[in-house]
């Protein structure tokens, strides 16, 4: 019997969210099929790749990363270099130095970093806070203010501070808002509901539904993303039709496979290769589960994932 292909096309689609301005602006989402099901219908926009830089500079002990940024000393120079990475679509600035349990940099200091990066790059900018809720509640509205006119994505509004971050980024300063939840479809949806009730336009929201490195409870991530895309497309649930962005680098490079030195674990092989492998596997898996963008760190991971996306489109 001949194979009879029946395209599974949905009458719903993921929102298209534009980040950045001008020629280099990118569009996330827009698809009306499951990830890479290009045999059902063309994917509106290819998934995008961001390069993570930190206000703490190049703290990495990974030779490939150190080599790539060689010669760049200021955060502006680092960011400028990052946007030239092969396959990169945007830069993601993490303000991890703001963490009160870490360097506890002042908000003014961090805002200077944001300004410097914003001036240095021409590609779209994503800014992530320091993950401490109290600090981010103060910091992210200031970030949104200082980036007026850049159409940046501010990450992330969470259940605890969505009002401050959502109102500042989404309403007062016309940025895009990242909505972060912890690997749970209902929490993700609830956050989108309350954020839109606040007045933020659903078309301005990008979800960060949480992640894990592959092998670290990753099946929860797959199931969550899968169900979100399922509900968004097959049930036309417009409170789940926001595109998904996943911060992969942070997860992938902080598990033991990507951290244990070669001296400690000679049988595991070179540290750098392991880290890249974790990063590539995680990124490939979240993209296949429905992420519309991933944030990575290593040049080789970016190149590999970029190639993968091109081949699958």
């Amino acid at each position, binding site marked *: 019997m001949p194979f009879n292909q029946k395209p599974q096309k949905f009458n719903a689609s993921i929102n298209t969210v534009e980040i950045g301005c001008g020629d280099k602006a990118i569009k996330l989402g827009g698809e009306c099929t499951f990830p890479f099901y290009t045999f059902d219908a063309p994917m509106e926009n290819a998934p995008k790749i961001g390069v993570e830089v930190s206000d703490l500079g190049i703290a990495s002990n990974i030779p490939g990363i150190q080599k790539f940024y060689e010669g760049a000393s200021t955060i502006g120079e680092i960011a400028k270099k990052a946007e030239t990475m092969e396959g990169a679509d945007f830069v993601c600035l993490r303000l991890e130095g703001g963490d009160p349990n870490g360097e506890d940099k002042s908000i003014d200091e961090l805002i200077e970093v944001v300004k410097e990066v914003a001036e240095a790059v021409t590609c779209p900018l994503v800014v992530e806070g320091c993950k401490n809720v109290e600090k981010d509640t103060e910091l992210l509205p200031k970030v949104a203010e200082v980036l007026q006119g850049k159409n940046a994505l501010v990450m992330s509004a969470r259940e605890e501070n969505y009002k401050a971050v959502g109102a500042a980024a989404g309403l007062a300063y016309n940025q895009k808002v990242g909505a972060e939840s912890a690997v749970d479809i209902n929490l993700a949806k609830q956050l989108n509901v309350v954020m839109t009730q606040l007045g933020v336009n659903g078309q301005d929201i990008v979800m960060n539904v949480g992640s894990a490195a592959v092998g670290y409870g990753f099946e929860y991530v797959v199931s969550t993303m899968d*169900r979100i895309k399922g509900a968004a497309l097959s049930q036309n649930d417009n409170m789940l039709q926001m595109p998904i962005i996943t911060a992969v680098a942070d997860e992938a490079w902080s598990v033991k496979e990507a951290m244990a030195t070669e001296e400690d674990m000679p049988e595991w092989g070179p540290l750098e290769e392991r880290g890249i492998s974790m990063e590539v596997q995680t990124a490939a898996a979240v993209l296949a589960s429905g992420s519309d963008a991933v944030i990575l760190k290593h040049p080789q991971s970016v190149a590999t994932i970029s190639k993968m996306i091109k081949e699958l489109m």
Partner: protein
Amino acid sequence: MTLFETVFSGNDAVYGLTENAINAAIEQHGADKAISFPNTAYSLPCYYAVTGVKVGTLGELKNALGVVKTLMTRENRTHDVFMSGVATALCAEFIEVLKYIDGATPYEEPCYGHLADAVIRELGVPLVTGDIPGVAVILGKAPTTEEAVALVKSYQAQGILVTLVGDIIDQLAEAGMKTGANLRVIPLGKDVTSVIHVVSVALRAALIFGNITPGDAGNLMKYTMERVPAFVNAFAPLNDVIVACGAGAIALGFPVITNQEGVAEVPKSLICQPDVSKFNATSLEARDIKIKITNIDIPVAFASAFEGEIIRRGDMQVEFDGSRVDCAELVQAVDASEIEDHKITIVGPDVDGMELGSKNSIAYVVKVAGKNMQSDFEPVIERKFHNYINCIEGVYHTGQRDMLRIRIGKEAFNAGFRLKHIGEVLYVSVKNEFDAVVDKCEVTIYTDPAECTRIRHEVAIPTFDKRDERLDTLTDESVDVYYSCILCQAFSPSHVCVVTPERLGLCGAVSWLDAKATNQLDPNGPCQVITKERPIDERIGEYEDVNEAVQKLSQGALQDVSLYSIMEKPMTSCGCFECICGIEPFSNGVVITNREYAGMTPLGMTFPELASMTGGGVQTPGFMGHGKHFISSKKFMKAEGGIERIVWMPKELKDTVAERLNKTAKEMYGIDNFTDMVGDETIATDPETLVAFLTEKNHPALGMDPMM
């Protein structure tokens, strides 16, 4: 003069002034002269917000005045009053913009006049988040300087943004009070027309934060009404112009509170409060503003870290013991007018009047009021008291209702802990956690033994009895809606609990009343209303609406469920069930086992083994997870014949549910001591022995139709 006439005449007066001022300005500067407020992209903000038309020159301003005139209809209807109020406000904006002609700076320290867009973006965020809980517009001259200062300070202490118009600015200056945007006290100007600068803030906030299209007056007013928590305090004497401006404020949803006696009051909108010291409370109540309380004022720490702390007899200053003397804890829903918020009363001796190590009576009654409060929530709030009081460092609480025990440690006592601090903890905790339903809360603590006896026997116990009766009479048929609970979807993605009065969540922790309260407190949370208007099959408890809800909430993983059958479309189980019920084919019955029981069951499987095939949000006919309370429900597998099918339970579980189960068996089938017929692990853990036992006891299941 009626309110209509007052507003109309005030409006006419302001209109006349505006017309003259514009004409004079055109004469002086010409119609092409540019006019604008500084630092705003919305000029003129109020007129632009209401009409969608920008005004840039004096000539255009004159045309705009013509449009304003069309709002000034003169029929005696509320609509005309509101529109005349809006017209008055717009006239005020026109008069104010003329002051700024030629880049003039008409306002000097401490007055601000027009506020820039940047200020609104900055203030807007805390307004949206509730960090600024309200905006007070104070207008005129307070009776005394002291009252002016006290009123402004009371708002300041609550984080409310205060704007000032008129003589009160001088009064504050006279008292040496500092003002300024950073202190959230903003003097606008001395002329009454300068009030438009705060209206301009509200309307631009609607454009910026509410995405309101300029000119969409309907949605604009809806936004200010719902989202801008502003109110007006206008001091006597009021003139027609102020009343007309007030009508404009009311049109935007901002109530006006005044001490002008004899003013024609409009409920919730125009309120006379002769006592200026009560302006604050009256205003907050009228505008539904709730102040978030961030710290609890007690001499010891308050944190969940102290929840498990035990006070031993030797470390104890005093104790209150409901098992020996009369004690009670009670929440009562009352009407808002009956109580005063944050009032804490002690009736009887305080801790320092009690002997060291003594046993005393205590009864605390927490009265709550709120628009969304229902008496069904009383026990939900009351159940949290254990947790609240335990979180106090050096204080320990067990039990509930009239069987409670509290110990206060010596260290806490020496740190200054007294009964009023228990009141403080209860007040703050209830207000914070239940802010969706509780608007006002008052606490009375009785330690006088006679009073405690009275409260316990005449107030508390009758209330408890009434609640129990309500729970007993609460049936699936007697309510209009059920609730979903999807709290467990994090690990059991397709599971949906349908919680009904007679079938609580399978974890045992979510009753129908809990689900109802959860829904009220967190309307977007895990418990959503499920209607039950379209029954498909009453026998197994299947409804079209329930199926639709389950389909939606499981993202299509489940198509249909029944509420009362274990065989046909049974409800799914997550993994948190207290008990598992499974079909036992030899006796035509079912076996129930609970999580605590580690041994074997006659099904040849232990609890964990059964759990692995029952959980995970899949429908497994013949098996279901459920709460302990459900065992004695009349709806327990009603479709298959009900509790008569139960043939085996672990002994401990059987003893726990015996009283209620026997009562149900007696009511439904006329069987006495039903649990005596039910096997347990001391009788049998294999089917043959069990059937022999059931035969000997003449268990009804043996004579029933096979379940499959």
